[in-house]
């Protein structure tokens, strides 16, 4: 049974995290909404009308799920990486280390903060998308589940990045050189059927590809992969990253001498 004290500590961390990103909403929430609106406008409306259809859907309808998920991924990741690194940098991580909080409570607290920011931005972007397309959601339950799982996965990835980071450069290197290519090559803007066979197989190694396609399935009702394989890959990555994070926390890597 989870002790009541742990729940209070968890609530404190989540409350602190939410207060942080809501206090600086111009830096945390607004940029993704503006960027995604520009994507809708340029790739969807202006260029999309010339591209025609993709997998039997208008190009705008095809890219909307991927763009929404892109906002969730980047916000969940950047929330945790910047918040946890900032906590390390200002040394107020010590406030938690001296307290009787198990490592998993700290991890769940930060992941929850990242998921909340991802969800808020995701919902805002979804609302904006309704101005550009007559989108209907085929499977709302699957959509919410993918929202949450994607948020959890990338919040955890952000946490690991923050644990190893030794400077502010280190928290921007991974998003720039790893996360962005994974997102852009994860089938947000195209169907992998357009790719040569080798690149199609290579795309299957990209976890973002599975998330984008499962999410696309939840909105459009179909995608490049089966739902089961999509969820399986997402869950395997989540379990792997959470295991690594807990190990790092319990050993005190990057936070203790």
């Amino acid at each position, binding site marked *: 049974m989870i002790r009541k004290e742990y729940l209070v500590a968890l*609530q404190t961390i989540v409350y602190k995290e939410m207060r942080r990103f809501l206090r600086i909403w111009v830096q945390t929430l607004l940029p993704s909404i503006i960027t995604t609106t520009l994507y809708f406008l340029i790739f969807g409306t202006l260029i999309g009308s010339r591209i025609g259809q993709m997998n039997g859907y208008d190009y705008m309808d095809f890219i909307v799920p991927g763009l929404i998920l892109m906002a969730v991924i980047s916000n969940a990741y950047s929330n945790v990486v910047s918040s946890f690194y900032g906590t390390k940098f200002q040394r107020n991580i010590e406030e938690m280390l*001296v307290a009787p*909080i198990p490592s998993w409570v700290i991890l769940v607290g930060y992941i929850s903060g990242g998921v909340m920011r991802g969800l808020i931005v995701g919902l805002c972007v979804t609302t904006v998308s309704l101005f550009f397309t007559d989108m209907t959601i085929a499977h709302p339950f699957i959509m919410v589940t993918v929202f949450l799982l994607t948020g959890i996965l990338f919040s955890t990835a952000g946490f690991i990045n923050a644990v190893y980071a030794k400077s502010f450069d280190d928290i921007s290197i991974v998003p720039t050189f790893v996360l962005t290519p994974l997102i852009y090559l994860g089938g947000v803007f195209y169907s992998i059927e357009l790719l040569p066979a080798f690149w199609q197989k290579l795309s299957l190694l990209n976890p973002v590809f599975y998330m984008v396609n499962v999410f696309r399935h939840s909105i459009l009702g179909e995608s490049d992969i089966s739902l089961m394989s999509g969820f399986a890959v997402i869950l395997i990555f989540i379990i792997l990253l959470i295991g690594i994070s807990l190990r790092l926390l319990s050993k005190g890597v990057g936070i203790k001498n």
Partner: protein
Amino acid sequence: MNALEIKNLEKRYSNGFVALKGINLSIKQGDFFALLGSNGAGKSTVIGIVSSLVNKTSGSVKVFGFDLDQEPEEAKRCIGLVPQEFNFNQFEKVFDIVVAQAGYYGIPRKEALRRAEVCLKQLELWDKRNEASRELSGGMKRRLMIARALVHEPKLLILDEPTAGVDIEIRRSMWDFLKEINAAGTTIILTTHYLEEAESLCRHIAIINKGEVVENTDMTSLLEKADEECFVLSLERAVDAVPEIDGCSITVVDERTWKVNVSKKVGLNALFADLDKLDIKVSGMRNESNRLEQWFLGLLSENREGAK
């Protein structure tokens, strides 16, 4: 019961530097304990290990009987830490920092709000509760760290140089506050570079040098070891010839100021009696440095000589 029991504590950093070489310490419940040592001696490493901020290499630490390895949460619940450097979120409000710390200790929000109010009022920070912590003065930041450390009502309060960089008035008021909470039952461990602070507050003292405890005793016994004390005397009128007084050595600072090292065996009464006989009138007197400081410097110098 001992508030803190440290056995054979060793710390070797990844670069090979040995910060602690198997130290042993016992601190009784209710004590006011000074942990002294020069910079880099290992004081902060001891505090870091006890408060779970530094991983130890070997040895054991028990806090009020709770082993830090076996029952870390119970041990942590007993400790309140005031670290040497400001380590709160500079952008958070004062009140939020203290309330959040209570939350980390599992104190429900309603009770956390009440306790935060009590602590901030005790430390005279209640008026600043809605200000971002970065806007506080240095002394206020120190007091905020004490308020934060006390919000879960710890039985053992550890203060790592709590009065560094604060003015005399605030330092004195912090001393009074610490005496008050110690009298109310909180065990206090203090590291400081102000030896006057240790002398006036603490009942027991340990001195760490190069990762080893070189002295661990009560303050009275320690002060008795100090052979002599240095006083600065202001003379009523200039004296041309410096007299010879048994057990004292006199250094002339200027024509009306002397520095006098007085041996403990001679004492001040004998010094003044001799000066009186010589018709030398003293209009003022102050300690050049306190006894503990002189003894401490002597000890460090002995250790350096020993190392050579």
